[in-house]
């Protein structure tokens, strides 16, 4: 029995982001408030991503050289960049890229992590051993460097950095699902279902899968924050969407040249990334605390 719990101890390396937020929830005893604020921000982000033109009449790509590097004002809430483009409009439009690449790469991690985790938890010991070593190999590469390797082979671009960040996250979900599968597999209700003559597929679909997958959305919510952070870093390095795309990382990379004279292009996109990451991690963490209370 204790044997089934052991995989959890092996989490070590890649577990960082999941642990990081439990501490934050202590800060706000009213977890509801956290959930509410984080959800509100994420909903706002989704609306911004879906229909950015509702909030601004400026075109994020249209420059106006006469209005270059204007400080924030009523006309330009976040000021303008060195080509005279409205930073507020660009930040709004940027939500689309960060959300879609971040969610896309998290989806890749979830799909492959769940499949491999289920395989490892259910099938032969040999397969289990092989998949666990695969996870070890993937997670021993620092995220950014693994992504650099993938981009070297596949080339720069939005899809490719999503794939790169997605691969790095596979072990995270794989290990959670594997551990959960092994716990559920040996649970009494599964044994009983087998005694009552339910087919293997029936047990898998009706008992195992639902109980294994409950853990995934919680982990995924925290993880989306991590992927958005990683994706913005790769864009900053110039490996993702290319200028003039109004992606937050790209905008910050462009702002570096004008920092001496203008602070605004270098502040607002970064604040957007930080707030987004905080929202996803805070929400995921609050969910995680609830989840832990529900499933002893």
């Amino acid at each position, binding site marked *: 029995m204790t044997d089934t719990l052991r995989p959890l101890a092996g*989490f*070590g*390396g*890649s*577990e*960082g982001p999941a*642990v*990081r*937020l*439990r*501490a*934050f929830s*202590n*800060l706000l005893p009213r977890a509801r408030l956290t959930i509410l604020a984080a959800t509100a921000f994420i909903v706002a982000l989704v609306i911004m991503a879906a229909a950015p033109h509702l909030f601004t009449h400026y075109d994020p790509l249209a420059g106006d050289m006469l209005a270059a590097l204007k400080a924030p004002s009523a006309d330009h809430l976040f000021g303008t960049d060195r080509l005279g483009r409205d930073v507020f409009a660009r930040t709004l439009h940027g939500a689309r890229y960060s959300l879609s690449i971040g969610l896309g790469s998290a989806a890749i991690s979830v799909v492959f992590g769940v499949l491999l985790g289920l395989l490892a938890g259910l099938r032969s010991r040999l397969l289990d051993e092989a998949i666990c*070593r*695969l996870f*070890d*190999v993937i997670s*021993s*590469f*620092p*995220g*950014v*460097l*693994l992504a*650099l*390797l993938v*981009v*070297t*082979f596949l080339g*720069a671009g939005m899809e490719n950095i999503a794939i790169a960040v997605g691969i790095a996250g596979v072990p995270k979900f794989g290990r959670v699902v594997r551990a959960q599968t092994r716990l559920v597999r040996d649970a009494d209700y599964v044994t009983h279902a087998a005694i009552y003559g339910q087919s293997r597929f029936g047990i898998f679909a009706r008992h195992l899968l639902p109980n294994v997958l409950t853990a995934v959305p919680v982990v995924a919510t925290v993880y989306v*924050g991590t992927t958005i*952070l990683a994706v*913005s*870093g790769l864009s*900053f*390095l*110039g*490996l993702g969407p290319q200028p003039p795309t109004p992606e937050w*990382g790209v905008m*910050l*990379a462009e*702002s*570096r040249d004008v*920092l*001496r004279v203008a*602070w605004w292009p*270098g*502040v607002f996109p*970064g604040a957007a*990334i*930080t707030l987004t*990451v*905080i929202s996803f*991690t*805070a929400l995921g963490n609050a969910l995680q605390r609830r989840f832990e209370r529900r499933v002893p």
Partner: protein
Amino acid sequence: MIFGPLGRRILSRLGTSLVVAWGSVTAAFLALHALPGRIEDILAGDLDYPGLREAIAAEWGLGRSLPEQYLDFVARIASGDFGVSYVLRQPVAQIVGSQILPTVQLATTAGALALALAVLAATLTAGRGGAARSVASTIELTCASAPVFWIGILLLMAFSFSLRWFPVSGAGGWKALVLPSAALALPTAGLLAQVLREAMEKTLEQPFIVTVRARGLGEGLIRLRHVLRHAALPAVTLGGWLIGGLLGGAVITEKVFGRPGLGTVTLNAVLTHDVPVVLAVVLLAAFIHVAASTLLDIVYVVIDPRLKAQ
């Protein structure tokens, strides 16, 4: 048994490390062969000078059978030979060797700074309700959620452009090291402080703390001598992950501050499609990660003697 429990632990760790090392080399080999196009073209990238493709074919033994190529590749990497960069026309080992120092400097300074900040924040605020702790938690969460390059940009604006205390870029002297290591350290420190504080608060509730208090030890000594040691375990678990994060973050930090180093070399290699260089750096980082994890396993036993008995 010849080895004690600690010895066995380290041996099993080393076994895993070997598997990881072999696995990553094999994965790299397979990736190279699975890609569409001829290997000569992949390795040459956009370059084209007479004799280049023939030289690559000869160096990588492309005329021979696949198993032979594979064994040769593994043997070469194992002996530390990563081949030649066809972009820079230099042995990869030389390129990496000449650029590794500034990066190691940056990563170790940042690591030490992160550790110091985290221990300070956690020791001062753990288990103490009130404003100071809330403020510290908020700052930690913000640091842990902010991108390294944004922190770097903010530091540049405040301390280089406005106050002019530190140079904007370069790698000359300690002054040029201050801002980059601060930028790299802050996210790690935020993460570490959160984990440390949570662990310290759990420890402070333990019965033995009451005993120590009853002996009349001051609060500061209790925290430093007793609580910190217990709380170190979960932090050490994070260690391997954090070291990897520092190495990856160094690439981004070097770009923000225009610092020379391995990150700059890697980034240029990625952009010019210089496969041997990228491969070498990534494998090196994986080895460092594995070595650090092994070392941390030993630290684990030193911190918690109970593990020795198991």
